């Protein structure tokens, strides 16, 4: 019996067996296209199609949305998403493309949307047929999210939206967006409201999506401009002026601290491409030379790799300890560290890899001699996306200092 199974309830145990059986026959084979490093970097239709097909299959089999009620397209189970995730990760399935939908939009719509809206939107969200994106950041509102200026004006029973969102991953494929905007200019926090809005159907008709190019040269995120987009009031989540509270639900789930477990498959270790792990770093070091010997023989490199191995294992063990109540100091203390630590560990791992590769780290994706196909320098650059997006590391440290340690708010 696997260690994860040790504490299963009868329902979980049965479901786990079901997942294992299904995955044995239905885990997709090699992808026909090179996959991106994460779902947020899906660039091409063939990539999307392959991943969408997998998500749909997993949803149809009941492995996605298991803990949501049947009425909204869920599986009606209790604490089973975790089980499905464990088994999908064990089976090394591909990741699912609708990450923002599953991880942020679904719980937000579920906890704050009207019943009819939930029933209409969530099934196609779970199945991956509708891709979702997130409209929070703006050119003038990054870390200070509450300063968003995108504005919705009431005209009859419609809202007319104008504004400019940035860093919207997946917007070029998205049907829907979760949108934090302003309905009242006189109050910073209480002037915010929260909508779901159609993107794809409104393209050229109030919505423009423009790709932004990343430091790596990849596309993958976008800016989205709203020019008098009209939406129905039924697309509003929760009350007018409660947008900030609704956004907190989104952000809590983004940080892994929400009530709903996000459906997850694949993950780093099963990514078809190169992952930023110490295991891959050690492989790189075995092949790299330093002073005429493998870099793995260099005591400094060994020491620095071990520093990262320890941080990586510590992060993993944090997740394990977070589920042992007697070993907690504060309910959110460990979970709120996840994003900060995982992004900084990835950054430092990629940074060390670049040093280990040495002169060869100059070589990029288009070079045949590049170690690991040039993906280490790309991973290093992409790591700044992780330490900046979704709350910079600086903001994460504020959150931890204020919510967990109880230090005075820095603003």
């Amino acid at each position, binding site marked *: 019996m*696997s260690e994860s199974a040790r504490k299963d309830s009868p329902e979980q145990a049965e479901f786990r067996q079901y997942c294992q059986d299904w995955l044995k026959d239905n885990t997709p084979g090699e992808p026909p296209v090179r996959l991106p490093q994460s779902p947020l970097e899906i660039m091409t239709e063939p990539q999307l199609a392959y991943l969408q097909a997998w998500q749909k299959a997993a949803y149809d089999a009941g492995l996605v949305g298991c803990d949501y009620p049947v009425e909204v397209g869920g599986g009606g189970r209790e604490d089973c998403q975790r089980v499905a995730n464990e088994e999908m990760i064990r089976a090394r399935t591909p990741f699912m493309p609708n990450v923002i939908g599953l991880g942020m939009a679904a719980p937000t719509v579920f906890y704050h949307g009207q019943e009819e809206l939930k029933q209409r939107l969530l099934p196609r969200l779970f199945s991956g047929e509708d891709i979702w994106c997130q409209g929070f950041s703006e050119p003038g509102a990054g870390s200070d999210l509450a300063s968003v200026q995108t504005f919705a004006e009431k005209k009859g029973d419609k809202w007319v939206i104008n504004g400019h969102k940035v860093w919207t991953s997946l917007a070029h494929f998205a049907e829907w967006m979760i949108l934090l905007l302003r309905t009242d200019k006189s109050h910073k926090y209480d002037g915010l409201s929260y909508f779901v809005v159609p993107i794809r159907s409104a393209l050229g008709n109030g919505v423009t999506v423009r790709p932004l190019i990343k430091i790596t040269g990849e596309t993958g995120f976008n800016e989205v401009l709203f020019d008098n987009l009209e939406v129905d009031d039924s697309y509003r989540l929760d009350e007018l002026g409660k947008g900030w509270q609704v956004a907190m639900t989104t952000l809590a789930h983004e940080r892994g601290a929400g009530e709903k477990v996000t459906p997850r498959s694949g993950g780093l270790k099963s990514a078809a491409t190169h992952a930023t792990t110490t295991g891959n770093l*050690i492989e790189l070091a075995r092949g790299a030379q330093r002073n005429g010997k493998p870099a793995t023989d260099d005591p400094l490199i*060994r020491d620095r790799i071990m520093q990262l191995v320890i941080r990586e294992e*510590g992060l993993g063990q944090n997740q394990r300890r977070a589920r042992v109540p007697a*070993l907690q100091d504060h309910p959110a203390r460990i979970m709120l560290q996840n994003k900060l630590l995982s992004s900084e560990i990835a950054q430092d791992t990629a940074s060390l890899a670049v040093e280990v590769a040495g002169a060869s780290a100059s070589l990029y994706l288009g070079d045949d001699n590049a170690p690991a196909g040039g993906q280490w320098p790309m991973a290093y650059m992409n790591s700044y996306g992780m330490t900046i997006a979704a709350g910079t590391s600086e903001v994460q440290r504020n959150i931890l200092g204020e919510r967990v340690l109880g230090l005075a708010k820095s603003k």
Partner: protein
Amino acid sequence: MAQPKNYGFGEEAAMLKESARKFFADNFSTEKLHSMVAQDPNPERMSECLWDQALWQEMVALGWTSLAVPEEAGGLGMPLAAVAGLVEELGRAAFPSPLLGTLNATYVLAACDAGEAALAAIAEGATATLAITNAAGSWDIRDTGVSAAGGKLSGTASFVQDARKSDYLLVSAASGDGLGLYWVAADAPGVTLHPDAIVDLTRDQAHVTFDNAAAEQVGADGAAALERALPAVWTLLAADICGAAEWQLQTTVEYVNARQQFDHSLGFFQAVKHPLVNVMCAIDESKSLTYNAACAYDTEPEEAARCAHMAKASAAETAAFASGRSVQCHGGIGFTWECFVHLYFKRQKHSQLLFGDAAWHRAKLADILIGPVAA
């Protein structure tokens, strides 16, 4: 054997940890600690051994010294995960005692071929400590300063922890047959304790000379026994560090919340806030790795060394970092003898380097994960 998800840290362990915390909170405030061990600030003071023996007797009565002794030797046979919980609380209280030494000796004895009698003595309340380090402070198992011949020990064991609080010494000694482990009373003929004058006010330390001292061999293959047991020693020291670091964090947080400068509490300033968050993250990493190491020791012995190297390497860094920030964030007052942070600062610097510093453990870990360096 797979590891239990919860580290095998069950209800009994949780109760033990909770009761230990309560015991120290009720009986041994930091103020009491300070007034006990910090009477003489003179930096050239001689070695002292100041501890609360009455409280220690209560701990013995609670069975804490026999927790790790196997049931067949008269102990409670609790898993290391549970013992680590107790030691975390011990570290948080920075309680001067022979508990850690006695637990260390227990794990080594349990890995020996002839440790039963000694274990029984511990189960009955005897205290002990390891004497396995040479004068150069080498942490490698085979580097002992003591030799054995015909059941008699000669030479010097250095850096013996809490020696003056211990009834017995568990000594590693080299002989023609390799490394053996020996059990000897601290006051036996031919055994002389030379107290060291140390920085840490919460421990005592000595080097011990053996002059043809008769001792009982408890482990014929001492290297094997130490190899098996040292991961437990490292894990418990890591647990002690985690507890002490948590005290440092909470005490510093309390101070920076109270202290006002520039119309704000110090905790308002990111130059204070963010380092303290980093301390917290470091502590959590070390704690998680510590319980992982304990669990591996209990359930997957072949993983015990790997996991314990991680735990002690992480904890050593945490000890140094938390200590530095605790003094810096306290500002001027933290630099004085009257502020309690110095007690933990000194204990942590001692723990950081004891039984291998971070770099030493990482080098050993690399040998496991990457393989040794080609000659």
